[in-house]
């Protein structure tokens, strides 16, 4: 990128294209990093709640605070939660699990149907910290991809996980999942699971950019499909967008930044969007904001009727 960018480019809305400039002040930087910091707080916080309950016996009113791990857990000894993908695999082994874990999977599924399916990936999954670190290092070191791989391969891995669960009689992904190995061994007891995590890190760092989370992970694929109609989405205000492309550059799933589709629906509708919020804070025009699908849809509807009326008039 040259510094003398003359003549000044203008976006389709006629406004000049302004690149993103990192604020010099610390407060300004904090504003840009706000979702990143919040995500780390949530990710570490969830792990800490589990760890505190298991290792140090944290209790509220005599009930264990958060017992278990991210595969299945119980909040305050009453509210069950469970990984719906893991439960689906167990059901496919032709075992009908107890009502408790079925309820737990339902609760988690409902939560992500509201918060956005892959919010799990950006806000809770501990592997995200590993792959984000790999992506950051990779950018720093300027490492290019070893090969290209379709991002849709994760749906093949998802189908394979379900098929192998049915064929082998064990929950296929749960038995090799580096995600589970990471949080299980962090919370309960350390073993060689970190080698699988290291594998993911090296794969993302040296072989394929966003290789694990963006191409292979079947849990991400599951949440992308399950959260297709999720409520929390990123709103896109088409008139303010200058097509500067900063959002697509910072997005770990750049294929979701389809501005044409976003203009039509008024949001980043793809289930593959992880609601990480990177695009929101980098956008120089404040075009992108968190919103609810319901409100976006109603606004979009009134907008189109208004413009239709204007055109008719």
């Amino acid at each position, binding site marked *: 990128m040259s510094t003398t960018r003359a003549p000044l480019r203008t976006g389709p809305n006629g406004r000049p294209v302004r690149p993103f400039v990192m604020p010099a002040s610390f407060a300004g930087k904090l504003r840009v990093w706000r979702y990143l910091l919040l995500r780390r707080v949530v990710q570490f916080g969830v792990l800490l709640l589990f760890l505190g*309950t*298991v290792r140090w016996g944290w209790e509220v009113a005599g009930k*264990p605070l958060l*017992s*278990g*791990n991210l*595969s*299945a*857990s*119980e909040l305050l000894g009453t509210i*069950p939660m*469970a*990984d719906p993908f*893991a*439960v689906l695999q*167990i059901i496919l*082994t*032709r*075992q009908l*699990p*107890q009502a*408790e*874990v079925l309820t*737990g999977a339902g609760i988690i599924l409902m939560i992500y149907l509201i918060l956005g399916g892959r919010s799990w990936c950006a806000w809770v999954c501990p592997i995200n910290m590993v792959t984000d670190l790999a992506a950051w290092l990779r950018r720093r070191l300027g490492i290019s991809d070893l090969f290209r791989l379709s991002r849709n*391969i994760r749906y*093949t*891995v998802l*189908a*394979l996980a379900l*098929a*192998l669960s049915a*064929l*082998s*009689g*064990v*929950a*296929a992904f*749960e*038995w*090799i999942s580096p995600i*589970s*190995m990471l949080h*299980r*061994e962090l*919370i*309960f*007891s*350390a*073993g*060689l*699971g970190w*080698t*699988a995590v290291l594998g993911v890190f090296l794969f993302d760092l040296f072989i394929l950019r966003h290789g694990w989370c963006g191409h292979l992970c079947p849990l991400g694929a599951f949440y992308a499909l399950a959260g297709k109609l999720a409520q929390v989405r990123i709103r896109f205000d088409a008139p303010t967008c200058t097509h500067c492309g900063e959002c697509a550059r910072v997005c770990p799933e750049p294929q979701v930044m389809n501005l*044409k589709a976003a203009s039509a629906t008024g949001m980043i509708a793809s289930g593959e969007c992880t609601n990480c919020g990177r695009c929101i804070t980098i956008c120089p025009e404040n075009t992108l904001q968190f919103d609810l699908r319901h409100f976006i849809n109603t606004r979009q509807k009134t907008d189109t009727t208004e413009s239709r009326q204007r055109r008719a008039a």
Partner: protein
Amino acid sequence: MANMTVISRRDFFTRVAQGAALAATGGLVWSYLLNQQARATPFAIRPPGARYEPDFNARCIKCGQCVDACPYDTLKLATADAGIPIGTPYFIPRETPCYMCEDIPCIAACPTGALDPALEDIDDSLMGLAVIDIENCLSWQGLRCEICFRECPVQGRAITVEHHPRRLSKHAMFVPLVHSDACTGCGICEKACPTQEAAIHVLQPDLVQGKIGDHYRLGWTSDTPITHEFNAVGGTAGADTPASGLDYLNEGPP
């Protein structure tokens, strides 16, 4: 979509084949890993109420709530290198045995039913079976040890002390004997055994138990019904029509 590209039929089928080959290769490697994991099972001593191993492996979601619920920190989750199906709960009796809580908190904590809630009395659990190495058992050397018998929570039923004649002395030995119908496999005996390496080990019953076979009639045991019916030559136990009890030696096979 506007950016859809037109591909030839040949390219289309090549891509389908490539996709299928990728899935098949991945699937093969993946199922090999699953097989390796599932085969590592026979030495794992599971928490009380654990279902038959394949069903247990299928149901367990590896959440560790049983581990969390155990008041004695007996249970552990298998790490990637434990040689036990990854993430599943187990315990090492020699380190910390199961102290057989009456309310069985681990089963209450299990959300999937991998630990079967049908087990209500901890005395009915079957985590394993204690097996005595008589070459190293102190009692079998003629010493009055009997620690396993005294520590056993199902005392007098799971382990009894029997006298046994000794070759070189006129004194009998008092040796422990495990009864599989009452032993729960809690491992307290293995923990208590005073030898350098425990001379009593809890193992999966499948690994050590034989089976006489239904066709043996132990006429001298009190619960064998006295009957004149027996199974015809070459027939199996429980055959549909048992032959009448004719005099086999005098009259030949029926």
